[in-house]
């Protein structure tokens, strides 16, 4: 209403100005050029107000004034219709040009102000977002501040991997825009409800939130890694202390029993029998302690595995020498080709995986049986086969033996074990994108594991520590 009134006042004032110029010029009786110039100037001045209609009306009024006021004494129109037309065109063109330029300038000024305000808001948003330390805190601050700063009805942030969406304000009705807020290809989505900010601002908001989420994720990841490392250090300190505390008394028992046993001057058979029992049980206790410690170490390491190129021949060597230590010398036939590529994994875990498989092959085979360990490269995978000449494993058990605590039906009562070995082997293999499975072959059960070979490392097994064991 007020604006309308103001417009009417402006139109009236403009008309009055034009009439005044015409009247003054007429009175002074000046030549034609002066009123023409003055009228054009007046139209231009009115046009700079930025109102196209007003400018048009003024230009017509000015050209009419020029035509009607300046008639000569005879009463005839002193100017031709062509001249009238030219005057009109000049006036209108001046009015349009003036008002157009004025409008553009005004628009630019408004734009500049709007941009400044947007920058201030974005700046404020980034300030708020950067103080957040955790992902939920960052996401919550983001939606709350977005609604507040950009006068939205509501905002929702769906963060990949988060249990719930983060939202603020009112989500009912109104226009909605949905965009990806991410810098690294994650599926974090941002929804803005209500009056929408400009496309540029929306993009800026999306990438800013993407950056903040990314930063919060990195911070959380780093904290998690640090905690894992600290946990791992603590665990290994505790394990080493435990190992020391258990093994020290066992060392005295084992040494004493083995001295007495090998001394050979015990006269009575029952004395020899008793000493043998102490010696053998000390061995068993040691084996149990070792297995439990290894198990605990595997669990710890699995949470934080290394990723390094590992040589399968070296892993095989280590397992064989470990087995020899616990189970006495056994017959292993080893056929690992030279130049087998490295695999990417954690040397300790891979060693434990093979140890579980070989231990299993040993336990479930007849005394004196041979165990063959062979390696091959097949379709970019290094495949290791551990084969014993043990008996047939029923079809329905071939997959189940890899389950935790599952033990073959025939052996459940006869063979000492926890039923964890193959399950551990499978988890480790899978951790490095590998597989473990069982094939029944005419010569006996063949346990196989496959691990991706190190890319571009074909035929470069050239560490001096490698050689082939044949016992």
């Amino acid at each position: 209403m007020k604006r309308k009134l103001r417009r009417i006042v402006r139109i009236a004032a403009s008309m009055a100005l034009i009439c005044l110029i015409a009247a003054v010029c007429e009175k002074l009786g000046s030549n034609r050029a002066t009123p023409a110039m003055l009228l054009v100037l007046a139209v231009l001045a009115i046009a700079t107000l930025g109102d196209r209609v007003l400018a048009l009306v003024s230009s017509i009024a000015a050209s009419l004034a020029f035509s009607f006021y300046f008639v000569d004494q005879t009463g005839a129109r002193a100017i031709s219709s062509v001249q009238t037309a030219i005057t009109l065109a000049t006036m209108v063109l001046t009015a349009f040009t003036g008002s157009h330029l004025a409008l553009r300038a005004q628009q630019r000024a408004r734009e500049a102000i709007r941009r400044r305000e947007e920058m201030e808001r974005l700046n404020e948003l980034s300030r708020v977002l950067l103080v957040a330390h955790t992902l939920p805190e960052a996401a919550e601050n983001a939606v709350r501040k977005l609604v507040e700063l950009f006068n939205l009805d509501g905002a929702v942030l769906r963060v990949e991997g988060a249990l719930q969406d983060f939202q603020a304000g009112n989500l009912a009705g109104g226009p909605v825009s949905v965009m990806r807020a991410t810098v690294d290809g994650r599926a974090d989505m941002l929804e803005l409800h209500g009056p929408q900010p400009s496309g540029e601002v929306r993009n800026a908001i999306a990438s800013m939130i993407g950056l903040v989420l990314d930063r919060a994720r990195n911070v959380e990841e780093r904290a998690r890694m640090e905690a894992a490392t600290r946990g791992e250090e603590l665990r290994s300190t505790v394990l080493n202390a435990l190992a020391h505390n258990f093994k020290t008394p066992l060392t005295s028992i084992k040494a004493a029993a083995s001295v007495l046993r090998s001394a050979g001057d015990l006269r009575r058979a029952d004395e020899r029998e008793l000493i043998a029992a102490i010696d053998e049980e000390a061995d068993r206790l040691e084996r149990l302690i070792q297995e439990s410690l290894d198990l605990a170490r595997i669990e710890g390491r699995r949470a934080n595995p290394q990723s390094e190129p590992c040589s399968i021949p070296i892993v095989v060597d280590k397992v064989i020498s470990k087995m020899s230590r616990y189970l006495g010398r056994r017959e292993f036939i080893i056929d690992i080709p030279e130049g087998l590529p490295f695999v990417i994994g954690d040397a300790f875990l891979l060693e434990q995986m093979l140890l579980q498989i070989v231990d299993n092959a040993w336990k479930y085979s007849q005394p004196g049986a041979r165990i063959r360990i062979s390696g091959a490269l097949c379709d970019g995978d290094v495949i290791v086969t551990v084969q014993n000449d043990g008996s047939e494993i029923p079809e329905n058990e071939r997959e189940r033996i890899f389950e935790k605590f599952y033990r073959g039906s025939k052996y459940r009562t006869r063979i000492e074990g926890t039923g964890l070995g193959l399950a551990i082997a499978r988890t480790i293999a899978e951790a490095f994108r590998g597989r473990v499975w069982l094939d029944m072959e005419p010569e006996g059960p063949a346990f196989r594991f496959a691990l991706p070979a190190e890319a571009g490392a074909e035929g470069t097994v050239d560490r001096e520590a490698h050689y082939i064991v044949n016992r």
Partner: protein
Amino acid sequence: MIEKRTILLIDDEPQIRRVLRTSLTAQGANVLDVQSGEEALELLREHTVDLILLDLNMPGMGGLEACRAIRNGWDVPIIVVSVQESDRDKVEALDAGADDFVTKPFSFDELMARIRAALRRTGFATDTTPKKVSTPGLEIDFEERRVIAGGKMVRLTPTEFDILRYLISQANKPVPHRKLLQAIWGPEYGDQIEYLRVFINQLRKKIEPPGAKPTFIATEPRIGYRFVLPVEQPVA
């Protein structure tokens, strides 16, 4: 073989010292035992010992540091006896100057075999070993146990000396890891490739002229090592 030999036992666990002292004495050895590295260093100044059994986890200076300190002043064979069992622990101990590593718990027979191997090493010689070797940059007198490398006298531990002597007895031929381990440490050995890597490294540091590529002890990839001795050099 261990009769009348003096063995120094360094372990903070009284029960282990008790069992080992009793058992080794029963085998005819003369056993001295202390419970820390500091005491061992003090004792070594007054007594000559033929072999040291050293624990790693000890209060005070600890096993590794004790090993280094002993190695600095004495050439006596050191067998580390520890509950630590990782390769890293073994390599650290060997790097510190130990000659062998036995994991606790052990059977007494196993320990005796290691002790015998360590004592045997100090008297090792073969018929094919030359008495003296002289080649540019390296002079060795096997009888005097003297090595001069790059014009400077260097001190080798008994194990290092034996490895060098064995490699030279097989000069210019590749010696497989297993063969070398068994020749130096004894027939029970063969898998302890990490031992060789540590000792060959130390030997190279002591006798090789500075430079990237070893001139005397060459690595034969996946096989073992080879001592390079120019054939035209007179071998007395």
